[in-house]
């Protein structure tokens, strides 16, 4: 009799790979992929000519424009403020720092409708801020500024929360080295610190922009939702749905989806570019 050498089957060191990966994929498919695919299929039914006429209708164009411009304004504000806030939270010790840190999450936790309501109350003609601003000729409520402020409110945490951990993990000896080499504090920031946090910063800003483009709850309260003036794209899609115009709704939704995907790609490209020097590590 000859011995039959049984093939050796390597055992995985960490068990449960099949089960855990399977569960994850199933979940991702049900929650994310199927809805997105359904939306795209729905859009494909429309046909290119009809699709184009829906999204190039003046009311739709106005809605896209408003959404995009307001989101850009909100992102610029949060880019500046979020960086400052992350810096303050990581670099200084002061009483109440933890409280401030916890407050950063309020926009995440707060229902957006509540945010929208309270912002409307503050900025309307008899609200705390409105009382001061309206006589000065600045109106926020029912204008693009109202939309931008609502977007700003809900997307604050994205920049702060992506930059903060990177800033915390920065090797302090890099800044010390720059100091011994005679660099001023300003130069240390622009030449040493900022390039290190740039990838996270870009990622944070992109997510904030994506979130602003899709924001709905907070805006509808403060915007007044006047067609051609303060009607955002997400709301227009909702209105079309209310009118049982599924095709109109999904065409607009598809454009929003397209924006989001483009942003994701840009964000990844920017990050890859900013990390290009990481080379071998």
């Amino acid at each position, binding site marked *: 009799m000859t011995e039959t050498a049984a093939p050796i089957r390597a055992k995985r060191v960490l068990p449960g790979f099949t089960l855990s990966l399977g569960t994850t994929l199933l979940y991702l498919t049900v929650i994310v992929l199927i809805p997105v695919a359904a939306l795209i299929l729905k859009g494909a039914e429309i046909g290119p000519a009809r699709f184009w006429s829906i999204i190039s209708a003046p009311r739709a164009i106005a809605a896209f424009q408003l959404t995009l411009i307001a989101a850009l304004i909100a992102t610029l504000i949060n880019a500046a403020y979020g960086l400052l806030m992350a810096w303050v939270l990581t670099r200084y010790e002061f009483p109440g720092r933890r409280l401030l840190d916890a407050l950063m999450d309020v926009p995440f936790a707060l229902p957006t409708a509540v945010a929208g309501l309270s912002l409307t109350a503050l900025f309307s003609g008899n609200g705390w801020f409105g009382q001061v601003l309206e006589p000065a000729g600045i109106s926020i409520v029912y204008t693009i500024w109202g939309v931008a402020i609502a977007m700003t409110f809900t997307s604050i945490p994205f920049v702060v929360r992506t930059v903060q951990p990177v800033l915390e993990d920065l090797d302090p000896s890099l800044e010390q080295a720059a100091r011994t080499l005679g660099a001023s504090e300003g130069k240390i920031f622009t030449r040493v610190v900022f390039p290190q946090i740039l990838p996270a910063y870009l990622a944070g800003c992109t997510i904030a922009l994506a979130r602003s483009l899709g924001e709905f709850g907070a805006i509808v309260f403060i915007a007044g939702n006047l067609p051609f003036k303060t009607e955002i794209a997400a709301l227009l899609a909702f209105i079309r749905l209310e009118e049982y115009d599924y095709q109109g709704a999904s065409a607009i939704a598809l454009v929003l989806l397209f924006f989001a995907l483009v942003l994701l790609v840009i964000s990844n490209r920017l990050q890859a570019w900013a990390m290009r*020097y990481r080379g071998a590590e």
Partner: protein
Amino acid sequence: MTITIKGLTKSFDDTPVLRGIDLTVRDGELLALLGPSGSGKTTLLRIIAGLEWPDAGQLVVAGEDWLALSAQQRRIGFVFQHYALFPHMTVRDNIAFGLSVRPRAARPGNAEIAQTVDELLNLLQIEHLADRHPAQLSGGQRQRVALGRALAIRPSVLLLDEPFGALDAAIRRDLRRWLREVHEKTGSTTIFVTHDQEEAFELADRVVVMGDGEILQIGTADDLYDAPACPFVARFMGAVVELPVNISDGRATARGLDASALPVTSAPDGPGRLFLRPDSIALIPDPASPWQLSRKISTGADLRLTLLGPEGQEIPVDLPRRSAPPVEISQTYRLRPSVGALFSDDAAGAAATPIRLSA
């Protein structure tokens, strides 16, 4: 630049790290701060750099009060233990950094910066790495870049924190020799921190031994080896055999000890401790001695012996295998040291009475 340090103290959260440091570093000297971790040597270096501030004391460099200057103003070259290279810059940009961040009025022209960088790349033998990023370099190469970056600003003082700590032994030896050469070429006053004696002795003109926030002894390798100032230095320098003895008329006496080869000292009579090196003890057969040979291992060149003492203590003795008289397990031997350091036990058995003892 002469560095004068007086009465420097520093505590972190009530834990004293430096307890009154007095030290003068001569112009152009290469000085090592040697000590175990926690001895305060790195803190002292960082205070000189302006990265930490002392609680009290003076730091004067070339007649200037450095405690009134920020790190930026001191113009020092500091090489960090883990190099702290800027990861997003090429080697060239890292080295040029100190020059390119100067205010416009004091900044050399681009061509001049490029020339300085080229000279340094050449001096450090890393021209071929100029356009790489730090992530693409080996440890030894990073070390050279870090040194180049520090030298680019023509520092008044060069400070290195455990410069070879993270490298393997062969590269260490190379870099040591090479650092010595760089020091000779640039002539700048240089202080480096290390916990490795061999490194300290091979590189430095003088070695400062630190322990527990104090300077225990300053000297050359010979000074520290022949005449340790206290038991700590004796132990640190490899005199690890510690015998309790009686001191009478300046001589150490104990059962099984033949101290006749050691010179007479001025140590006061009473109990004391004798510190010996395993490689400078001769063994003489003596049935009356309490020291019994219990283990014998050969490394080819040496015999590594273990002797069992009267109170059950074990001491190591190293003999040259081919030239020493043969020894037998279980035989008893008298210890006849040729070099030793004797300290009297008073003043808490510590550094009170340093007594020079050598053959």
